[in-house]
């Protein structure tokens, strides 16, 4: 009896240890959910009209990371957001990444485009130092955000610095025609899930980090493709975009904190084409054309006294100037500039309370010929998990 009990105990111990041991052995594949939540309060006023005060956003954006091996990673992000009285689900990206060798990684699927740096690196609410996007991004933006296709990317040390690159082929832009939306005729849309023409857009970015401490990065990007539908009046209308970006981030003891400067200049050139408008009372549309070039830029500077003591080290101040100019003669002609200031309080490296004030001066924009001045005050929070 005793022998049986001891034997049983030993067996139990042995099995227990086996199970215990296994529970702590990490698996080769790994699945992880990260992401962020964000919402806020907006107070906005256009000229002398009544102001709007509204809680906005309530975004929940889960990010799924599946590491199949040391070389293969799948990433996807969904974005649930309350907008115009309903839940909008955004499908931000879903792509697989395979590390071919030291210098080359292949990506395929729907991915954020490294056209400039704002969209790929800086737009998530817990990274963006202000509650709003600079002019030229987001709705009515002139820069592509994501695309479906394939990409090669990588980085290599060069001298005491390093370079990084990306080269991709995606479905490319769609040209908005008068038949699609007369108000936006001539604009580009980048959400092109089934290509409207056989032509693929080709783009890329080269980033140079000249200093050994990686504090400075200069980038140049391009994105070229046919935008018009195949087989129609616009089948040869091409779009050529380019961008320059700059980043400087460093903790400097002399100013007891982190100085962070980011900037991007984006230019879009679309070939000339005829668009049509129906004046009131007319039955036959008249055609018009314009030089279809737009540009946008922003510069942002932020400072956080990270070397101070107490709560002061969690405070950050930020200023940003941005500008957008769309074609003269288009229905969506606009000249706008914006100044934004903000104060942030960082609760952790990925959670922040953001307070900001901004003024946007614009002339034109969506069937609006006059000039307008929009002021906004924002109190937002963002939390990465």
């Amino acid at each position: 009896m005793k022998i049986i009990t001891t034997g049983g105990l030993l067996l139990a111990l042995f099995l227990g240890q086996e199970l215990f041991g296994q529970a702590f052995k990490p698996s080769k594949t790994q699945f992880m959910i990260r992401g962020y939540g964000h919402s806020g309060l907006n107070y906005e006023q256009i000229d002398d009209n009544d102001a709007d005060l509204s809680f906005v956003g309530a975004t929940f954006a889960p990010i799924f990371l599946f590491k199949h091996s040391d070389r293969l990673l799948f990433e996807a992000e969904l974005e649930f957001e309350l907008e115009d009285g309903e839940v909008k689900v955004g499908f931000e990206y879903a792509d697989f990444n395979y590390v071919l060798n030291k210098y080359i990684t292949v990506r395929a699927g729907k991915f954020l485009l490294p056209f400039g740096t704002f969209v790929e690196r800086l737009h998530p609410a817990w990274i963006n130092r202000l509650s709003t996007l600079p002019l030229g991004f987001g709705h009515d933006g002139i820069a592509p955000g994501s695309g479906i296709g394939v990409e090669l990317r990588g980085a290599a040390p060069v001298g005491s610095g390093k370079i990084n690159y990306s080269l991709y082929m995606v479905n490319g832009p769609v040209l908005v025609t008068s038949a699609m939306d007369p108000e936006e005729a001539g604009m580009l849309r980048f959400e092109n899930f089934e290509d409207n023409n056989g032509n693929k857009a080709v783009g890329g970015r080269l980033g140079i980090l000249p200093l050994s401490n990686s504090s400075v990065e200069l980038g140049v990007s391009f994105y070229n493709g046919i935008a018009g539908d195949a087989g129609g009046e616009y089948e040869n209308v091409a779009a050529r975009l380019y961008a320059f970006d700059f980043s400087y981030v460093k903790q400097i003891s002399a100013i007891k904190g982190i100085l962070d400067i980011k900037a991007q200049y984006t230019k879009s050139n679309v070939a000339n084409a005829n668009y049509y408008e129906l004046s009131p009372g007319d039955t036959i549309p008249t055609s018009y054309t314009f030089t279809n070039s737009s540009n946008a830029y922003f510069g942002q500077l932020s400072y956080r006294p990270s070397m101070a003591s107490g709560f002061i080290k969690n405070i950050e101040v930020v200023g940003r100037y941005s500008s957008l100019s769309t074609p003269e003669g288009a229905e969506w002609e606009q000249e706008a500039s914006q100044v934004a200031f903000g104060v942030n309080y960082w609760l952790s490296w990925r959670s922040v309370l953001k307070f900001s004030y901004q003024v946007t001066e614009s002339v034109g924009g969506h069937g609006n010929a006059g000039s307008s001045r929009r002021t906004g005050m924002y109190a937002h929070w963002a939390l990465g998990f």
Partner: protein
Amino acid sequence: MSKVRIISTLTAVFLFLVTLYSCEAQKAAASQKTGAQLWGENCIRCHNIPSPGDYNDVDWETIGLHMRIRANLTEDEIDKIVEFMKTVN
């Protein structure tokens, strides 16, 4: 943006870089740096610097791969950084 503005901006950026370069050129290249140094210099460029203690070893492996690709880090850099994160978390 007017031509004058573009040229003056580029000149300013260039002068800024030359100044920085002369201060930094003598210092060690990335290949001679430790994981801790590379973490401090690289993981701060887009977002705030993450603390190693936020994630366990297995998580750091996945995040390391994600950031290697997203942030275009070199293999040498990310290997050293992940090693460092796993040692001090």
